[in-house]
């Protein structure tokens, strides 16, 4: 019986039948640059810094996120503000090293640093991958708008 099966190539023909059938099924391809898969709700994309409703910085330059980061991505500069509090001068995120673990977000006591759903951030030059304060705040505005939309 098994010999007969081998001699008539039953198993092989079965496989070929399946591939032939599949050929006429609709494809499942997402044509990427023209179509995109929407990212999941908790997707960890590039970082953003949130602003308070009154427009002041939410981040108080406590360095916790920088401490927490396993690959030393985050760095910041600050001065003493008018009211004696620390104030952010620059906040850099080096995307070339970031592994998108989200530990910085977990660490932040003020919920200032967050991660957006943006995953397309390729650049032609490497220094464009180092995000500064302005970029991050811009992203923060995008994030907050999006958050509101989602609600």
């Amino acid at each position: 019986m098994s010999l007969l099966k081998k001699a008539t190539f039953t198993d092989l023909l079965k496989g070929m039948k399946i591939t032939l059938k599949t050929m006429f099924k609709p494809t499942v391809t997402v044509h990427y640059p023209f179509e995109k898969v929407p990212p999941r709700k908790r997707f960890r994309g590039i970082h953003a810094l949130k602003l308070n409703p009154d427009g002041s910085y939410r981040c108080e330059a406590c360095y916790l996120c920088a401490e927490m980061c396993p690959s030393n991505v985050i760095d910041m500069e600050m001065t003493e503000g008018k009211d004696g509090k620390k104030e952010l001068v620059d906040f850099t995120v080096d995307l070339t090293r970031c592994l998108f673990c989200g530990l910085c977000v977990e660490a932040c006591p003020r919920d200032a640093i967050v991660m957006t759903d943006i995953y397309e951030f390729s650049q032609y030059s490497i220094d464009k991958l180092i995000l500064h304060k302005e970029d991050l705040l811009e992203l923060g505005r995008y994030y907050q708008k999006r958050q509101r939309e989602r609600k």
Partner: protein
Amino acid sequence: MIEHFLSLLFIVGLMLVAVPPITYLERKVLGHMQQRSGPMVVGPHGVLQPIADAIKLIFKEDVIPRGADKLLFVFAPSFSVFAALLAASVVPIGFINAVPMKSGLLFVMAMSAISIYAFFLAGYSSNDKYSFLAGMRAAAQVLGYELPMGFALMAVVILFGSFDFNEIVKWQQTHGWGIFYQPIAFVIFLIMMVAEVCRPPFDLPEGESELVGGFHTEYSGMRFAAFFFGEYINIIVLSLVVSLLFFGGWSGPLADKHPVLGVLYHLLKAGFFIFLTFWLRATFPRYRFDQMLNIMWKIFLPLSILNIFIAAVEALFVG
């Protein structure tokens, strides 16, 4: 004379022009068999993809690795196209017969036998371990498939009583298609044909997963393309031969009144076998090296020898 020359021009032109669309179709068919859609971006449904590929390949830097055997390295890819085109020149397509030859079938066999040197020499001359192994595999594979293929062909030749393609088709027009007489030879020839052009599941010399790219690991640009030209021309030629030997070639309804229809029939039949190679590629994983040699030497070789006896008995009765 002029007629032969025109036919030759037609056949060589056809072979060279047909290759890019075939690569496109292959990618489409493979894609759809895996529920992908294949090339889509260049032109509507990606039809211009082969042209984009050609432009890319022409403008690629042509690298000859250090330590390579320059002469053989340059010689190997051109040899692949050369042998394939030589084989193509003797195969008649309908009434278009460039080089009418008494031993046409044997000539195709001989050319296909020496076409393996392209792979072998490419593997040797690249000065690369992976390519070298691929070259060895190509040599072992030719020893595996050549004999069963030859014996399968001998069986049909005994039945038809000629090596001449025109005679073979004439025989089939009076007696019926060859596949009804020689199904075993057909199956063996089909499998050996896949092994001969090194297509999956017998793409051992290429072996993308183990040997990087096999014999063409070190090739780039037009030399790389030349290997593919050779491979696809070989596929077309052997598909034409299969349809000649087992499916009556250009015979079909109304074909004797309108010879052009015969050409069409022949190309359609060959087209099916070209499709079959895509189909096999989408379906089966590669055979392991020892498995390949085992089935060639232990199953198909005895079977093909046995088949010669069957053919002899048939030839006695049918005449």
